[in-house]
Structure formats: structure tokens, C-alpha cells
């Protein structure tokens, strides 16, 4: 079964509480997976975009990064040697450079929960409602008064950042 939804962030609603990081951390053997970016004084989470053509998979010399049968980009624990090629390759900076036990932590879209009809842990924990787990559809966003600003970012007015 292909999982079509992806985690998107409404940058107008992020309150920088880092609940997404904590939920992911405690749900994944205390690995620091969620990375953060800063623009000016605003800091917001960089959640793995689960790209259709992931550069991290191409970059990995040990085939530790792969796409599984549900279309989710994942990291193989036994094969990852912590070389950091995926960290460099990711154009969005979502792969955290913090090594965890000499391996690179990687988002798995909380496949264990999503396949049961649940939400990824970061989305479920988001205090401000900034993170959503949806299929990116222009029509659907327009109904909510939102705009797609880039592949995984949405907001209320793309020309007016707070």
C-alpha cells in the first residue's frame, strides 16, 4: 500500500515549542531525528520530505538508505555506517548531522503508526497545529485558505511572512 500523504508545515502556525522533536525522540529509541532551521529569529522544524526522487538514497554508498514497498524513504540500521553522505546530499537539510551511536538518524514517517491509520508522532504532538499529514493538493489547500509555498511548506499568505 503506497502512503500518499506527507508531513507539511504551516509556517504561520509554528510556535517553536519543539514538541515535534520530543515526540519523535521518545518514539524512536531516543534518536535525535528532527532537524531545525533558522531564518532570522524564527526557528522551525525541517521534517524529512520523503522525496519522490530522494538524493539521499542515491548518495548512500552502502545502500543503507532505501525506499520501501510503501514509498517511504528509510534507513537500514545494520547497513548504515554513519558516513554522512546523506546529510550532505539532502538539499533541504532535513537529515540531522548529529550521529546517534555512530549512525545517522532518519525519519521513517512513523510507518508503524501510519499503516494503522494513525498520524506521525511529530504531527500528533504539534502544539500549534503547524504540522499536518496530508496529500498536497492545491484545491484542498485553497478550501482552507492556505497556499503551497514550496513542496512541503504551506501558509496563509505567501507574500506576507510574520
Amino acid at each position: 500500500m503506497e502512503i500518499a500523504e506527507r508531513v507539511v508545515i504551516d509556517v504561520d502556525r509554528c510556535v517553536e515549542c519543539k514538541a515535534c522533536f520530543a515526540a519523535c525522540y521518545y518514539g524512536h529509541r531516543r534518536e535525535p531525528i528532527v532537524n531545525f532551521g533558522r531564518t532570522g529569529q524564527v526557528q522551525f522544524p525541517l521534517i524529512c520530505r520523503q522525496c519522490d526522487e530522494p538524493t539521499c538514497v542515491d548518495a548512500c554508498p552502502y545502500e543503507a538508505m532505501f525506499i520501501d514497498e510503501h514509498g517511504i524513504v528509510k534507513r537500514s540500521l545494520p547497513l548504515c555506517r554513519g558516513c554522512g553522505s546523506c546529510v550532505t546530499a539532502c538539499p533541504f537539510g532535513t537529515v540531522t548531522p548529529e550521529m546517534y551511536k555512530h549512525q545517522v538518524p532518519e525519519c521513517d514517517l512513523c510507518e508503524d503508526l501510519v499503516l494503522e491509520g494513525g498520524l506521525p508522532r511529530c504531527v500528533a504532538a504539534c502544539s500549534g497545529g503547524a504540522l499536518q499529514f496530508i496529500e498536497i493538493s492545491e484545491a484542498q489547500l485553497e478550501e482552507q485558505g492556505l497556499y503551497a509555498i514550496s513542496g512541503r511548506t504551506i501558509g496563509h499568505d505567501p507574500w506576507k511572512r510574520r
Partner: protein
Amino acid sequence: MTEQAYTHCLFCSLCCPIKIESDRGERYRLNYETQGPRATAGLCGRGSSWVELVEHPGRLRDGLRKEGQERVPLSGSETGEAFAQLSARALEQGRIALVADGNLPCEDLLTLYDWASAKEGRVAMAVYLPPPDLDLLEGLSAVEAPTLAPEELTSFDGVVVIGNALQTHPVLGRALLDEKFKNPRAVFAVLDTLPSVTTRFATVALDIAPESHQAVLEKLLSALDVTLTVEESPVLRDLAQTAGVSYGRVKRLVGQLQAARKVAVVVSAELTKNSDWRSVGVLAGRLARAKGGAVLPLCSYGNAVGAYRLMRHLRLARFEGLLKEGKSKPWAAVVQVACDLGNTYPAELLEPLWGSTSRKVMFASLPTPGVRETDLTIAIPTPVEYSGTAVTGSGIERRLKPTERVSPWVQSVGDFFRRQLGRGQAGTEKESLWKTVPSRGKEIPAEAALRPAAEPGAGRVRLQAVTGPIHFDDGALTRQAGWTLYWEAEPQVSIGSALAERLAVKEAGRVVLKQNGSCLELACRVDPTLEPGQATVSVHFPEVRRFLPWRLDESGARLCCPAAAVELESRR
């Protein structure tokens, strides 16, 4: 076999519901309980970290008694005998001070009260709540302010937020922002002493000086009846000058408030932003009533409301009262139940209570530094594992079912003291005491409410301690949660660009704070939104809390903490 139990987080007054799953008391998993009226957002970072406290490798499981230089472990029944002997010897020589943490279940606080009462006046009991929480609740009580629950925010058409609510209580974000984006023209005013995450969402933000909340709110109340015209109003001009903002901004704020029919006032009482949250509570209550609304008090303790009600009904002292009494005559024994005041306050302040007594007892779940000083330590569950009632602002009480308590190897405070009293599970529960609102408190004189902010003085900056979303407010448990190390492994001081240039210090450089002979070296962060006279530091670290200028008021019965005037030097 997986066991499930339902409880609530106690790290703030929103008390988010939690479901705990454990495998025979090991390998816990905490999930946000998605049922119920408040199931609108997940656990914040603080709430998520409960699992780390429950599974902490240094978790206390036995009692410990000091014998010479050694600490001898004691079993459950042995701790009961040891405590009974210690307290009996202490009572022969003097009085016992008993400090009970306000986050204990209401039933356990009552059992402690019963035990203290049975000692015929020789045990003085106080309930510990952070002074800003207590002061705010006292102020609201003084004017019988209408209060609201977080889920009731949808019934208001405007919000005034005092403080950085979206960082101190992040789970409130969903409710506040849902309303904001549903009605973008509705007033979302923020009064705070620093530029913050919350002010970024405001329709109108007032960046006011510390200690000026009372003056600003008084003048704002007067301005609500002003007719807005093209000509400048002296009332609005006065308000603008008091708040230190432009006339246009004040006019916009008053116009938006006048247009709203029903306004919620959200108050987050934070250290160093004001030393008199009682007066702020009084004025917030008046503002809410003037706009047909109610107040949502945001406290740092989950059971703040429950503990406050019990304190008022039973006439229990604030813990500061025990400091005052200890100055005239040292306590024969001091018992701290589920709190470690040494992580929160400097040793000099606690000297009349903890420093000068010859017998120290602590009921604790984790090995905080104060445990090392005790003569007797008794292991108890962490608060999230308790059976019992907490009264939240919603009035909703969530219980952990007694038969499904997740760490059965330690006895609760209530069980321990019921055994000391020689009775079983039944006791004087007095449930009505925490279910009923106490009678109106004392009104705060209007003259006492208006206090100007003190200038820091030449060459100094005003240091404010800020509450963030990731650490624990009292400093006791900050370094116990591993995930916080990725964000702030050590405390940092934030200064503005102009000050950084003057000190010739860059991002991640080191600076030294100096105040009254005390020094504190910290890493530095440059925040361009801060003004030259401002500096901020995270309140969550014990070394920072001990550095803050805690002081007792003239009566000696109330602690407060204003913003400190400090000197800053770069550390090369």
C-alpha cells in the same frame, strides 16, 4: 502483560491527559490520551519527557538513612519506623517544618495535613507552590475574577495575553491560533516585557518594562471608555507613555478592544517580569469583567488550583512563612515531600529552613542534589504515577486507577502517612475542600498596585529569566530529560547586537554576569530583537535560579524575584 493507566501531566496547569502503558512495571510508553474535550494537541516536550523520569536509571527505589559517612538502604517498613523515630526525637526537642509539594494529589495533601494536625501544633505545614502561581491565584481570588478553561476560548471574540504564553504553555497554541486564523480581525493583544514568540502572532503587541504591568493595565482599563476621535486623547497619550509605545499603537489596541464584545485574558505569571503578580491578577480580573469575559490563569504547577484551594480552606502557610519562623528558632527537623527547594533557591535564602536544621528528611523519586544532604530519604513515585486528584483550571480531575499504579515497588506519600497515622485506606478525604472555591481573598490596595519599574543604572543591564517550552521550571529536573541536551545543554544569556558589539563578544562567546558579589559565567547568544539594556537567560537551570535576586517582602512572608540589574563582561 501490558498494563494501561490514565493520568495527567503536571508540568503546567493545562494538565494534558496521558495514557501510560507498561510491561509489568518496566519499559514504559507514554501517549497523549486522545479522548476527551481537551484532546486537541499532543503532549509538549516537557510532557513527553515524563517517560525519562519514570525510567531514570538513578530512580530511588529504597529508603536511605545516613549512618556516619555511609548511606544505608532501608526497606519500605524500615523507612516507616525510621521516620517515626526521627520525628518523635525531633518533637521532643522542638518543632518540625513540613513542606509539601503542591503537585501532590489533593488526597495526599489532606493526609499530610491530618498527620501534622495530630502533632498538636508542633508540626508546621506549608504547601509549596511557585510564588508567581500563588500570587496570581490570590489576586484573581481577591476580585472573584471569572475564570475559563482552555477549551472555552472558542466562545470569545478577542484575547489579551499577558506574558509569553505560547512558550510557557505551548499546548495552548492550537486553541489560540485556531481562533486567530478563524477571525483574523479579532483582537489578539500581547503585553510582554520582551519580544517573544507570542508577540509575533499579535494584532497589537505592547513591549512594556518589567514591573509596569500594573500601571499599564490600570490605564488600559481607564482607556476602554474613551471615544476614539482624530484628536489626540490625553488618556491614550498617558497610556502610551506608561507603556513606552507609540500613540498610534495604543489607539489601535483600544479600538480593537472596544470592538470586541467578549474578551479572554490569558495570564502567564513569569519570574522577573513582575514581582507582584497578585496585583496583576486583580487587574486582569477587572479587565476581563469590563469586557464581559474571563481570565485563563496559566500556572507552572499542574495542581496549582487544587493546592491553592486547600491552602486557603485549611489556612496552610506559604513555605516562606517557615523561613521567617526558622530565623527566630531553628527547626528540630525539616521534611520536604516531593520537592527539593535547594534546586530552586539559593542556599543562603534557605538557611533558616534547610541549612540550620539538624535533621533533614526528603521524600523523593529522583536523586536530586538535596537528597545527598538528608539524614533520611524515602522513595516515592514520580507525580505522573500517582493515584489521586489534581484540580486544573478546567476543574477536570483525572485519576490514575489505584490498582494500575505503574511502579508498585514504592509507596505513595498518602499510603506512607496513613500508616504513620495507624489507619488504612479510608481517611478524612474532605473532598469538598478542593472542589469548592474558597471565599474571597483580601483586596489589594490600589496604591500598592502601581509601582514604577526601576532603572538598571549606568553600565548595567536588566536581566530577565525566561521560561521556555523544553525545560522544567523549578530547575530540579532539567538535566534529567536527555532530549533537552540537544537544545540547551548549558544555560545561555541572550543579549542584543549593540550590547554584543560593546562587549566585543560574538555568538557562542562567553560572558560573566555579576551582581552583588556573585558571578555566573555563561555562553552567549546574540538576539537582534533585544534592546541595549536587556538580557535574558533561561530560568530552568538550578545555577541560574540560585543567581536570581530572590527577596522576601517587608512582611517576610512572601518571596518575589524582580529583574536583576547586572553587569556584563566578556570572558576571554
